[in-house]
């Protein structure tokens, strides 16, 4: 079967783990790995795994995009360089999956709104809202340009927004709060130095994608040895008394959806109800591809990004989407 050819930008932990996941995909093929340090371990490993590599950043990839028929790129660098990377590749008709907190494109949580993104891209309509229900209006850049770039929010967002959405799809949620506990070893220097961006992006996405009127995200980094598996606690305040049976059923259904691409996504305790508060206690164990199993936070990002790219790839292969170069602004 024909596969869509992909480039990975950023040769760190995330980029390397992505190689494993994309290599397993029936519709994606990893072809290029882009780094900035010729001596980097990540680039060496990518070469061993059969990828072409460049240490000249995205500019080193651009001359090969058309010849190698690269159609999807994953950016796992930083929010600061993402916009430039995205612009250069979009101009060559490459669709961008953004794993940084830059969030210049619409926010994507696969089981919540991936279908909607794909439908919008195939029909060429401009996007006016990615909130499935009740959420505040997004003021996204409209048109194909923004849809040639989708953002994966944050690990905490991927791990918790499906649950918020499962509640808000049953009844309106005034406030949703998530607490993500991450193993110290699984949090890289970029996230550490820019924790506020993580907080802002995730809080906003709880509202825009999760459908809560107000969202708040808390992150805790725990250095315990052996490293703790990623934990997430999701709390929602419903406007009216919660319909416990329907909300519990909706949450359990959503967990099954996420388990399709993250098998280690597991309910530990709850849902538990107290007045209008619904609380769910989750754990995310990774697949242990390149990253250790405790780093479920990184695994859920790479798995969600791969799932997202697969959906677009299926649409491209079926002829329902044609990627077009984005005109320079």
């Amino acid at each position, binding site marked *: 079967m024909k596969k869509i050819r992909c480039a990975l930008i950023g040769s760190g932990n995330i980029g390397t783990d992505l190689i494993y996941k994309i290599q397993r995909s029936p519709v994606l093929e990893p072809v290029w790995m882009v780094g900035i340090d010729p001596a980097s371990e990540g680039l060496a490993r990518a070469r061993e795994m059969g990828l072409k590599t460049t240490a000249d950043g995205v500019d080193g990839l651009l001359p090969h995009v058309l010849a190698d028929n690269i159609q999807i790129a994953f950016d796992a660098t930083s929010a600061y360089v993402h916009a430039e990377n995205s612009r250069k590749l979009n101009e060559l008709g490459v669709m961008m999956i953004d794993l940084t907190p830059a969030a210049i494109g619409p926010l994507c949580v696969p089981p919540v709104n991936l279908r909607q993104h794909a439908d919008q891209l195939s029909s060429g309509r401009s996007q006016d809202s990615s909130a499935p229900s009740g959420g505040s209006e997004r003021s996204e850049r409209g048109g194909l340009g923004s849809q040639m770039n989708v953002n994966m929010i944050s690990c905490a967002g991927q791990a918790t927004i499906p649950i918020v959405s499962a509640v808000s799809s049953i009844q309106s949620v005034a406030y949703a709060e998530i607490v993500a506990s991450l193993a110290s070893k699984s949090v890289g220097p970029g996230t550490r130095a820019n*924790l*506020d961006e993580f907080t802002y992006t995730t809080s906003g996405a709880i509202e825009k994608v999760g459908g809560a009127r107000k969202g708040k995200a808390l992150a805790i980094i725990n250095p315990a040895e052996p490293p703790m598996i990623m934990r997430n606690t999701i709390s929602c305040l419903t406007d009216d008394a919660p319909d416990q049976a329907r909300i519990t059923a909706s949450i359990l259904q959503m967990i099954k959806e996420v388990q399709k691409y993250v098998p280690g996504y597991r309910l530990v*305790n709850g849902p538990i109800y107290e007045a209008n508060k619904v609380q769910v*206690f989750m754990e995310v164990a990774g697949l242990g591809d390149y990253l250790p199993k405790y780093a479920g936070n990184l695994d859920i990002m790479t798995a969600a990004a791969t799932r997202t790219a697969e959906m677009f790839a299926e649409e491209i292969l079926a002829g329902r989407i044609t990627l077009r170069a984005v005109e320079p602004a």
Partner: protein
Amino acid sequence: MDLKGKKVILHDMCLRDGMHAKREQISIDQMVKVATALDEAGVPYVQVTHGAGLGGNSLQHGFAPHSNEDYISTVAARMKQAKVSVLLIPGLGTMRELQSAYDCGARSVHVATHCTEADTSPQHIAFARKLGMDTTGFLMMAHLNDPAGVAQQGKLMESYGAQTVYVTDSAGYMLPGDVIARIQALRDVLRPETEIGFHGHHNLGMGIANSIAAIEAGATRIDGSVGGLGAGAGNTPLEVFAAVCERMGIDTGVDLFKLMDMAEEIIVPMMEHVVRVDRESLTLGFAGVYSTFLLHSKRAAERFGVPARDILVELGRKKMIGGQEDMIMDTAMTMARERGLLQHVAA
């Protein structure tokens, strides 16, 4: 050691750490009453925020009746000499909230991280300095890192711009030797002009002794709270500490009798429970658990029928740290299930 003539800067925590002991329910009137009494007694720094600091209002940490902005601006406007300080824990509070606290009159900040995670604070420390605030890097649960590790983390905070680095005994677990080793290690690596502080909890009754040990090792700033109003068995009781300092000739610049009156007449009547070393707060100190977990564990114990001490010991075993209050309920539920007290929802 002769500490005669040493100058020490006191920092009162009643209106921040004390918020924990009051389930975050301190009124604006009470804040003003406490802060003005501290101001009149000559305490140079008064911390005023939600117990978990800026951004603390949450289901995780409880909602105070007023915003941090309302508390800070009301108190700051009444201070004659004392500076108002705030707590900011990255991952919970943000620079937007720090800016807003500054606009309301806060002039000092404890930027707090777990004792191994200092590198989550560079943005916030640098921003506090840019605002011209008296900026402290606050290494929490410091018993969970060895002296060399604490020193290295403190050095990072200094490199981001912190003017003071604190050893923070959040669990009230340390003994004087633990305090001295960490503060000496910091003194060895920090620049001479960088100050060192100590923040104690009284869970093993060591608040005063640890603070004196800290001064012997080179600390010049000490946190405490009048009447010991704080999480767990409370902070180092400030009036007691001031009395000990006076006996030892350490210069704190505060009026001891005013603090004593304040403890008796203002703080003790405010308490919802007697803040003291009881079975559960002693468990915190003994097991090395974050002091704020105390009341959360008591609530979870009541709800799920598992004794609070059992929950606290298990949290200590699982190495849970400050900010993981959600794991108290989670742990209580798991223990209740194992004991046949709770059914699991089939997933």
